[in-house]
Each structure stands twice: as C-alpha cells, then as structure tokens.
C-alpha cells in the first residue's frame, strides 16, 4: 500500500493495515426510531430523566480531570464520564425527537434552566474533588449510582420504546465497568488503612440519604408501564449488590434515612439541591455566552 503523502493513508480506504484501533461502529445503527403509542409529554419527560442522570453525573466526574490522585485514575474517571456523556447524548436526542419541538441534544443540555432538569439528586451533589467530598466519596456515589443504573437498564432492555431499549443494552456494558471500578476502590479503601476506612465509611454516609430517591417511582414512571422501569422493583437487587460490596470491604451499611424532600418533590420534579445551580452555571456558561460555539 503506497500513498503520496502521510495523511492520505489515514482516510477513505479499508483499514486492514492498522494493527490497533479499528472496527468502531455507530452506537444505534439500525435501531427503529418509531415512537410508541404513549403520552408524548410523559415519554419526553422520561427520556429527560434518564438523560439528565447521565449528563449531570458525567459533568461531576469530569471535574476530576487533572485532579485525580493518580494519572491512571484521572484517565479512568474521564473514560467513565465520557461513557455517561455518550449515553446522555443518545437519550437527550431521543427526548427532543419525541417532544417534536425541534430541540436537539445541545438545546436540551445547555439551554434548559434548573427547574427543567429531571436528574436524581445523587447525580448532582458535590462528592469531590471540591468541597463536599473526596475520592472515597466519589467512589461511594459511583458504586451506588452504577449499581442502581444496571438494575434499571437491564429491565429497560425490554422497553416498548426501541431506542430506550437499545441505549440500555449498549449502556449496560459500560455501567458494568463503572460499577467494577467503583467496587474495586470501595473494597481497597474500606479494607485498607484506618484512615482510608474512616474516609470510605464517611463517603458512604454522605451519599446514602440519596439512595431512597433512586428507588421511589415518579408519577411519569408509573404512567409509562411497559416503556419505563418501575424503580420500586429495583430495591432488592440494588440492596443485594451494595451489601455484598460493603461486606467484602468491611464497611457498615449506613442507616437508611432519606434526604428531605420539598413538599414531597425531588429531582424528578425539577426540584434540586443547592449545588445544582452552580453546576449548571459552569456546564452551560460557554454555550450561552457563545451560542453554537464549536471547536
């Protein structure tokens, strides 16, 4: 194989001469994009719930970039953040498609205000690297979040919405790695030194009040039977996974005292914690200052 210049060899021909790094495929190629016969506003809201969970946690994990305790961990956290961002893009695109008002993934990610975000509080709270946590707290959150998401997505694969089913099937493999990464660290820190054990236990105590919201059905989820997953069904599976990891780590399961709601409302209703406004300000600032900016 010969080329006139070095760049020509990189484009537009079969890739068999590459030893590494080929065979990428488009995420949802060939998936039916038919919208199931359910209330469109409900389905849009449900896509936003799932998409915002992934988008907001992705942003939180990206805050570790250049701040992780080790170079290798920096790369690992960025990889996980990018996996979640990829899921968020597919889900927000679907939300815009179902809504039918011409909003794309960028409009939904960057131009909605706090009350229109539908993510759970666990995704948005500060767990480090800044005030509100540390690396152990970040691993505690990732363990709880990914254990819950795996239970949710494994059921969502049977959703009557073919796009949600496909996103779930793709996302499960990624989430399995996220949970494994978190569990490895929870066990090492919990079963490590006295100081690492103390901080790991403190990290669990910090995130535990937000577990209940993950397992409480919202009215939209109840109305979308057959399309949405009922979070109430996930409790025993999630509890089983968390108890197994905590037991291997020599950690104590915190007492279940759910975080307070505002008039019974929480993240799924667009009612967020104090941290959410600051998070959105940083995440949306560039796009709102320079609409449509690309690089």
């Amino acid at each position, binding site marked *: 194989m010969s080329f006139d210049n070095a760049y020509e060899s990189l484009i537009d021909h079969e890739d*068999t001469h*590459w*030893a*590494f*790094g*080929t*065979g*990428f495929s488009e995420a949802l190629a060939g998936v039916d994009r038919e919208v199931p016969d359910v209330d469109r506003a409900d389905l849009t809201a449900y896509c936003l719930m799932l998409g915002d969970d992934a988008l907001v946690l992705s942003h939180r994990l990206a805050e570790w970039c250049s701040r992780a*305790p*080790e*170079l*290798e*961990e920096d*790369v*690992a956290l960025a*990889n996980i953040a990018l996996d979640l961002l990829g899921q968020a893009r597919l889900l927000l695109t679907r939300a815009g498609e179902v809504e039918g008002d011409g909003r794309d993934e960028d409009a939904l990610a960057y131009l909605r205000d706090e009350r229109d975000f539908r993510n759970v509080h666990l995704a948005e709270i500060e767990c480090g690297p800044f005030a509100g946590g540390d690396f152990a707290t970040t691993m505690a959150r990732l363990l709880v979040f990914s254990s819950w998401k795996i239970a949710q997505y494994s059921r969502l694969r049977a959703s009557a919405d073919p796009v949600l089913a496909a996103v779930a099937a793709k996302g499960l493999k990624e989430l399995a790695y996220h949970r*494994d*990464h978190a569990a*490895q660290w929870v066990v*090492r820190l919990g079963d490590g030194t006295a100081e690492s054990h103390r901080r790991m236990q403190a990290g669990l105590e910090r995130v535990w009040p937000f577990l209940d919201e993950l397992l409480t059905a919202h009215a939209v989820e109840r109305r979308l039977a057959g399309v949405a997953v009922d979070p109430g069904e996930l409790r025993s599976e999630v509890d089983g996974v968390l108890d197994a990891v905590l037991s291997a780590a020599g950690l104590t399961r915190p007492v279940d005292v759910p975080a307070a709601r505002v008039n019974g409302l929480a993240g799924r209703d667009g009612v967020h914690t104090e941290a959410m406004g600051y998070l959105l300000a940083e995440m949306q600032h560039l796009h709102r200052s320079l609409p449509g900016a690309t690089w």
Partner: protein
Amino acid sequence: MSSSWPLWEVFVRGKRGLNHVHVGSLHAPDAEMALRNARDVYTRRNEGVSIWVVPAAAITASSPDEKDPFFEPSGDKVYRHPTFYEIPEDVPHL
C-alpha cells in the same frame, strides 16, 4: 503517591496481532488495578482483545554495557538469515 505504587509493564494483544506487544508502563497498587488501569490507559481506542501486566521489578533486562558482546557478533553472519528463499506472497504472518 506514585512513588509508593509499584511500576507495571503492559502488554496488549491487538485484534489482528498474534502475540502480546509491549505498549508501555503504569503505576498501580496491585495486579488487579494494574489490569484495569491498563484497560483505561492503553485500550481506549479499541486496540486490544487481551492484556498482560507484569511487575516491572520481575523483568530482567540485558545491560547496555554488554550490548557489544551480546549483539555485535551476529552482525557479519549473513548465513544465519534465511534470505535466499523466495517467500510466496499469500503466506501470512511471515
């Protein structure tokens, strides 16, 4: 912190590769985490189907000082090379 974590050498077998190839090194607290770190650092672009990690301390390397007695003697022994055969084009992996 890096100073307290041991160094590991990473070998990846690519999709089309027949053997594991050394791709670099990294720090990790133990073998399991070294495997996971290697997955994140060296196979992000779909490079691999199998990873080995080896403690760098377990590798015995030839010394640069011994380079001449080790390698020089083979320089003029052309008869050791099978360069006088014709190799058919459709024989793979040669």
